[in-house]
C-alpha cells in the first residue's frame, strides 16, 4: 500500500467579482498520484500549475476562498480530507511535515531556535524538556549545523538563508515524520548551498525510509534528486513516472515542450514556438487544458483525455499518446 495516495483532488477558488458575479477558478482539476515509503517524488510545473496548492490541500491548510470540491488524500489508508480537525492537527507536524518555501518568514522571530525545536517535539510526543533538548541538538547536528548546542541559543534573524532552511528541516524532522513535503526547499539559495540541502534530504530518505515530495520548478533538482516525477499543468498532472523514463521519452506535448526548454536541450537559433502566460483557470477549455497551445491538438482534445499507461508506471494524460 502506498504511504500517500491522492485520488482525483479538485480545489477551486470561489469568489465574487465587482459585479457580484460568482467567479470560479479551477485551480486543481483531478490531481491523482501515489507515493511509497523510501521514495522521493518531484512535483514540477510552472507558475500557477497548482504545485503548492496540491500540498496545502492535502495538509488541510486551505483558507477561503479556496475550497476542496472533491477527491481523497489517503495517508496510511486514512483520508486526510475527511478527518476531523483534531485528528489532523495531531498528524500534522508529527507524521506529515511540511517545509515551506521562505525559511525566514516561517520561523517564529521571537523565539530562539532551540525553544522552537523543543516546543514542536513536546507538543506531539510529550516527554521532558531535557529529552526534547537532546533530540533537538541531535537533529541539528545530523543536519550538518556546526556547534548545535550553541546554535540552540540563536535567534532566527541571526541565521543565513541556508542555515534557516536547515533549521526548518530540523523542525520538520523533530517528530520523525513518515512523509516530508518540501515546497521549493532550495529556491533563493545559492547553488553550493542548494547542493548541501538536497544531499541532506536525500540521505535522510535513504537512511530512514521516509517518503518525500519535493515541489519545484527546477528540472535539474528533479533529474538528480527524485525517483519519480509528476508534471503539472493547469491544475492537473499531465504526465508522471520514473524520472529517467520521463526525461528520456516524454510523451505529453507539454512535457516535451518543458523539457525542450531547459538550457541543456535548448538549441538557440532554431526558432520554435514557446510558452505563453499561465492558462486562465477561470476559463479553462473543456477537455485537455493544454489544447489551445498544443502543436498536436485535434478535434477530440475537447474531450477529457485518458491516462495512457506507457509501462513501468509511466503515464501520460493525452489523446495523442499511444500505449
Amino acid at each position, binding site marked *: 500500500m502506498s504511504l500517500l495516495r491522492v485520488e482525483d483532488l479538485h480545489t477551486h477558488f470561489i469568489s465574487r467579482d465587482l459585479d457580484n458575479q460568482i467567479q470560479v477558478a479551477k485551480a486543481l482539476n483531478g490531481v491523482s498520484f501515489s507515493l511509497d515509503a523510501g521514495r522521493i517524488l518531484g512535483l514540477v510545473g510552472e507558475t500557477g500549475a497548482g504545485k503548492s496548492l496540491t500540498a496545502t490541500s492535502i495538509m488541510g491548510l486551505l483558507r477561503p476562498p479556496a475550497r476542496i470540491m472533491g477527491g481523497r488524500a489517503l495517508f496510511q489508508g486514512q483520508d486526510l480530507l475527511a478527518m476531523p480537525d483534531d485528528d489532523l492537527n495531531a498528524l500534522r507536524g508529527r507524521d506529515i511535515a511540511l517545509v515551506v518555501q521562505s525559511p525566514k518568514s516561517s520561523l517564529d522571530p521571537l523565539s530562539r531556535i532551540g525553544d522552537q525545536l523543543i516546543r514542536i517535539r513536546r507538543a506531539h510526543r510529550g516527554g521532558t524538556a531535557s529529552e526534547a533538548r537532546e533530540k533537538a541538538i541531535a537533529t541539528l547536528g545530523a543536519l550538518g549545523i556546526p556547534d548545535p548546542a550553541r546554535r540552540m541559543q540563536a535567534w532566527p534573524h541571526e541565521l543565513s538563508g541556508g542555515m534557516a532552511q536547515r533549521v526548518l528541516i530540523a523542525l520538520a524532522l523533530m517528530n520523525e515524520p513518515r512523509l516530508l513535503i518540501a515546497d521549493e526547499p532550495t529556491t533563493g539559495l545559492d547553488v553550493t548551498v542548494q547542493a548541501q540541502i538536497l544531499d541532506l534530504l536525500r*540521505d535522510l530518505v*535513504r537512511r530512514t525510509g521516509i517518503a518525500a515530495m519535493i515541489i519545484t*520548478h527546477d528540472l*535539474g533538482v528533479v*533529474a538528480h534528486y527524485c525517483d519519480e516525477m509528476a508534471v503539472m499543468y493547469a491544475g492537473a498532472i499531465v504526465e508522471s513516472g520514473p524520472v529517467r523514463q520521463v526525461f528520456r521519452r516524454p510523451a505529453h506535448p507539454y512535457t516535451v515542450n518543458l523539457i525542450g526548454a531547459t538550457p541543456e536541450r535548448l538549441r538557440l537559433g532554431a526558432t520554435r514556438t*514557446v510558452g505563453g502566460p499561465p492558462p486562465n483557470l477561470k476559463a479553462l477549455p473543456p477537455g485537455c487544458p493544454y489544447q489551445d497551445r498544443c502543436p498536436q491538438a485535434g478535434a477530440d482534445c475537447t474531450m477529457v483525455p485518458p491516462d495512457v499507461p506507457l509501462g513501468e508506471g509511466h503515464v501520460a494524460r493525452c489523446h495523442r499518446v499511444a500505449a
Partner: protein
Amino acid sequence: MTAPILEVEGLVKHFDVSRHVKVHAVNGVSFSIREGETLGVVGESGSGKSTIGRSVIRLLSPTGGTIRFRGRDITNLPESACRPLRAEMQMVFQDPWSALNPRIRIGDLIAEPLKLHTRLSAAERRDRAEALAIRVRLTPELLTRFPAELSGGQLQRVCIARAIATSPKLIVLDEPTSSLDLSVRAGILELLAELKAETGAAMMFISHDLGTVKLISDRILVLYLGSVVEYAPTAQVFADAAHPYSQALMSAHLPADPDAVLKRHVLQGEIPSPINLPPGCHFASRCPVAVPRCRIETPRLDAVAGDAEHRAACLRIAEGANRIPALEDAHG
C-alpha cells in the same frame, strides 16, 4: 582579435554602511568585453555581479579603478556626460514589473529612449516603436496597453525592445530571465541570441543560473566576494575549471538531464560577509585545498598553464594542488 569595447581595470566599489563600516562589494576586478562578445558573469549572492554591471554603465560611481568604453575613460564622467553615452550602453534588469513605469503605455515605453537620444519626430518614433515591438515578437495591439496588462515574459520583451531601440554597442543584462518560467525563459534566450547575431551588440550577461550562462556566453567571469577567481572561455570553465571555487560552483550545477554524470565537490559553509574581508584569498575559509599562506598572500589573476585566455586567481595552481577532491556520486 577584435578590439575590446569595454575594458575594466582594478574596479573597486565600496558602500559605506556607517562611518566605520564599509561593504566591500567589488575589490579590484579587471576584465574586458570584445565587440560582439557575450560575457557571462556568475557568482553567488553577494559576489558583486550586479554592482559590477551597474558600475560599468555608470549607474554607480566606482570607488577606484578605471572603466574604458570604446577606448574612452568613463570612470569619473559626470552624470550629464554619461547621459548621451547611454544611447550606446543599455541595461535590462531582473524584474520587469518594477523596471517599467506602470502609468505609461507600452508603445510610449518603447519609444522613450528614442525621445531621449534621437531627433526623430513623434510619428517616426511611433513607427520605430512598432517595428521594435514586432522585432521582439510582441503583437502591435499591445502597444496601447499598460504594463499591468502584460505577462512577465512580455514585459521582459518590452525591456529588451527599449534596450535595443538606440542600437547600443553594449547591453548589460542583470538576471534577465531569473524571474521567468522555464518555457518563457527559453523564448527570451532565443530572442537574445538572434539579436546578438543581428546587431553585433556585445552583452554582459549576469546570472546565477549556470545552465543559461553556459548556453549564451562566449567567455565567463567567475566572481567570489567581489573578486574575479576565474576568467576563461565558457567551455573551459565548465569542462576544466582551475580555481577550487569554480570547480565547486560548476559541480553544484544540476543539469536538467538525469543521465548527466555529476562531479560532486560539495563546499562546506556559506559565503562570508563582505564587511570584514579577511586578508589573502577570500575563498580560503571554505577552500578544501587552502594552505596557511593562502590566508596571507593575495593571489593574482594569472594565466593557467601559459594560456592567456584562461586566467585564475589561486596560489595552488602553480603547485598543481588546485584540484579539490570529488565526492562519490551516491545516486546513479
